[in-house]
């Protein structure tokens, strides 16, 4: 009995924080999402969102951009994490610092950097123009490509570090065994390391996916108002047109969407560890 009291005392700051900063606001959001103009209960906000091709288009853009971003993060993150795991400890430390360093700068500042690089006359369009691929007025700003580039840069550290944690635990002797049995380096990577690293890749991808469907700063700055995503649409409804109930309904839809994406992962990892 005393043990339980001690446990509770230890957990209470966390529980309190969760209750006040998470559960309470979520409950309020759920309530707001079903309040109508006259104060009664209604599902009109959900109907408005789910029956309008414009809003469904926003959902579709958010999902497919997030999938592309996640794929890029995994494809770039896995080899990077593997190299980091197999490097000497001091080199690994430097690589980790290198990966984490961008996180020390605000996303807004980094995104402004991309705006300079991707805009008309910026480094990338200018180089492409000099090489002769594109016209003088070419710009990458306000394109979906810009959103993907910016988001991959923001999310890559999260994916890489998740994968790194798992790759570090893979027994090196398994790779050595594979090589002595005659498998090439790439075959070893594909048949031994990749399957063993899968939990890390899944966890990292999931992190990247959930962060990118709910991200708002980078898509709104790099994509602009003509490429709306869900989080941007929620922001507009909440702060610009002051339709709080509609904003809450959109947030509920986003929350449910993220939970749906999480379910197969939880099942999958439960099977692996359970």
């Amino acid at each position, binding site marked *: 009995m005393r043990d339980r009291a001690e446990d509770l005392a230890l957990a209470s700051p966390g529980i309190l924080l969760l209750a006040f900063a998470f559960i309470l606001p979520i409950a309020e959001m759920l309530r707001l999402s079903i309040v109508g103009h006259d104060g009664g209960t209604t599902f009109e906000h959900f109907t408005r969102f789910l029956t309008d091709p414009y809003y469904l288009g926003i959902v579709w853009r958010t999902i497919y951009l997030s999938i592309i971003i996640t794929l890029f993060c995994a494809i770039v993150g896995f080899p990077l994490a593997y190299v980091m795991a197999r490097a000497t400890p001091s080199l690994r430390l430097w690589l980790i610092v290198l990966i984490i360093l961008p996180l020390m700068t605000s996303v807004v500042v980094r995104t402004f950097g991309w705006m300079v690089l991707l805009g008309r*006359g910026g480094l990338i369009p200018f180089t492409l123009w000099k090489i002769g691929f594109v016209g003088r007025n070419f710009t990458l700003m306000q394109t979906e490509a810009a959103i993907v580039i910016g988001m991959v840069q923001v999310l890559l550290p999260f994916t890489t570090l998740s994968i790194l944690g798992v790759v570090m635990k893979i027994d090196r002797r398994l790779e050595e065994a594979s090589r002595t049995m005659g498998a090439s380096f790439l075959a070893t990577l594909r048949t031994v390391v990749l399957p063993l690293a899968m939990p890390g890749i899944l966890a990292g991808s999931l992190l990247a996916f959930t962060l990118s469907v709910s991200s708002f700063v980078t898509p709104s700055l790099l994509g602009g*108002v003509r490429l*709306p995503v869900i989080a941007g649409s929620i922001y*507009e409804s909440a702060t610009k047109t002051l339709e709080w109930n509609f904003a809450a309904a959109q947030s509920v839809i986003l929350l449910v969407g993220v939970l749906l994406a999480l379910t197969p992962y939880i099942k999958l990892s439960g099977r692996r560890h359970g």
Partner: protein
Amino acid sequence: MVANVSKAAALLALASVLATPAFAKDKLVINSYGGAYEQIHRKLVIEPFQKKYDVDVQVITAYSADALAQLRAQKAAPQFDVIHFSGGQEVVAAREGLIGPIKAEELTNARDLYPFATEGLARGEGPVHAVAAIGLLYNKDKAPKKPAKWADLWDPAYKDHVVLTDLSNSYGLLGFLMMNKVKGGDIKNPEPGFEAVKGLLGGAVVVSTSPELQQNFAQNDAWIAPYAQDYAYTLRKAGLPIEFVQGAEGTPAVYLTANLVANRPNQELAKKFIDFSLSAEVQEGWARELRYSPTNKATKLDEALAKEVVYGEQAVSGLMRFNPLDVDANRASIIERWKKLIAR
């Protein structure tokens, strides 16, 4: 629990009574809009007023929509003495009885104001103490020619170099309503405006904030954009060759008003504060510091400055305003229609 809270509140109230010195200065509570605006507001109005009348002025930063929301919430026990609006909220506030009427005789500067600035007094609204004019910003170094009218936005000479502002931005909304008007629509019928904007979208960039507009003029080779006159000055200060032109069809104006909050004990002092905001000296300061146009005819501006604001009877006669009540009633639907139009 409730008893405890009220006990605590009573204690706090007692403490604050005890803490107040017996000969406290008179105090006014006002709102300002934050940032550079609030700095200048303090320098031009608030600090000189405190000195002149030996009173305290407490400033709470609240934008117009927020300020209106606070007034509504505090209806039973208002906390502000003077409230400033820039989005036409005074029309709504007056109708709801949140702000009190001021008679022209009570303001020494009232007789010097242009008629449009005191028009609202009869409806129980405060006077207009400054104007932000909406027109065309253009890059004088790069644009092939100087624009003269709103219809020039559709001139093929500017194709691919036009910047439009999202309607979630209030300057953007006014710019769009003007384009709509030029194309034959009105607030209740925005279709002509949407049709016309549709034709522009292929060769235009749409931004949603002022810094993005700056970025487009600085790096993205923008030539022309409907926006506010005071922001043209901000861009010039940042070293960009941007000039402001009043469109020949009319100049939509953002009226900055100073309003007397209803049911407050210190209304005489509040009226003095509002009157002070209307003086020629203060308005000259607004024009000099931020390029807001004066509403006081007696305001003297030197020649260079006069060219950068709406100044003089003739220029002022071009100012126009969309009815704030209509704008408020149609804002959400117009913005949603706009978002659907511009989404790719």
